[in-house]
């Protein structure tokens, strides 16, 4: 039964608190009007930190069988392959798209 160790309540509350603070930060940085490519980098960076917190603590990956983490990360790897190969097509077309 070692796998069924309940997390301390404070761990869950602090995680939710951190997620709320990061949400406020991600809204607040838009008021700074960071120039074009970097605003996306900052927004996605904060979103990635938030998603990591949810996955590690709420979804228990930190204490879990590491194979579940490997399965989860594999989906991100294949998503990035999907993005990369699609952009290699759409960004380098000689003839632009029709109506879209």
């Amino acid at each position: 039964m070692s796998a069924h160790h309940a997390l301390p309540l404070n761990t869950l509350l602090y995680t939710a608190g951190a997620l709320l603070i990061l949400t406020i930060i991600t809204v607040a940085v838009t008021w700074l009007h960071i120039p074009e490519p970097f605003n996306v980098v900052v927004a996605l960076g904060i979103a990635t930190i938030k998603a990591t917190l949810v996955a590690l603590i709420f979804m228990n990956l930190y204490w879990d069988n590491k194979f579940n983490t490997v399965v989860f990360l594999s989906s991100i790897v294949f998503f990035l392959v999907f993005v990369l190969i699609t952009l290699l097509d759409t960004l380098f077309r000689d003839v632009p798209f029709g109506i879209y």
Partner: protein
Amino acid sequence: MANSKQIAEKAPHVLHHFVDSDQQFESSKLGMWIFLVTEILFFGGLFVAYIVYRALHPELFIMAAEQLDTTMGAINTAVLIASSLTIAMAIRAAQLNQKRNLIILLSSTIALAFTFMVIKYFEYTHKFDLGIYPGSYYTFEGIDHELASVFFSIYYMMTALHGIHVVIGIVFIGILVYKASKDKFSPEYYTPVEITALYWHLVDIIWIFLFPLLYLID
């Protein structure tokens, strides 16, 4: 025989093809993680559409995103984070055999999910009033860009698919409340709570990315 003795010792919730409760629990969880991988790639197609169109028309996204209400999006982010907290606490209640807390926390999660959908409803109807519909039904003239409808087609597809997942989550958490009220869960067996929570957290993670990508483009 030694085998039949072993089978007789297993807890009632353990199916015959598993060695013990832990193995059954771990198998269910791995199965859920593999399902979540397919979900990520399912949403991934829409994220790719978003990335391709934003790379082609960055100015369109800046102009069109002004029509989205950042405050409502931020409130919905907080609502989903709170619902992730309540369902994570529900697992803890199941592990500690607190039946009353389990039902209260699962019900709170459902209430927060409904709050999310109500806010979404107000956002959608406000846009419909302006004539901001998806695809060829788009009639709004406030955005000076010939492809303005493309942004909103992406917006509606992503948020509606996410909204469908929230509704499905409400149904499954509702089933958990029913089962908890019938005393189906115990510290030895709470697998449905665990895997439904995994699904719910993934829905939260998707929104964590949708919110800055759609609402926070300035």
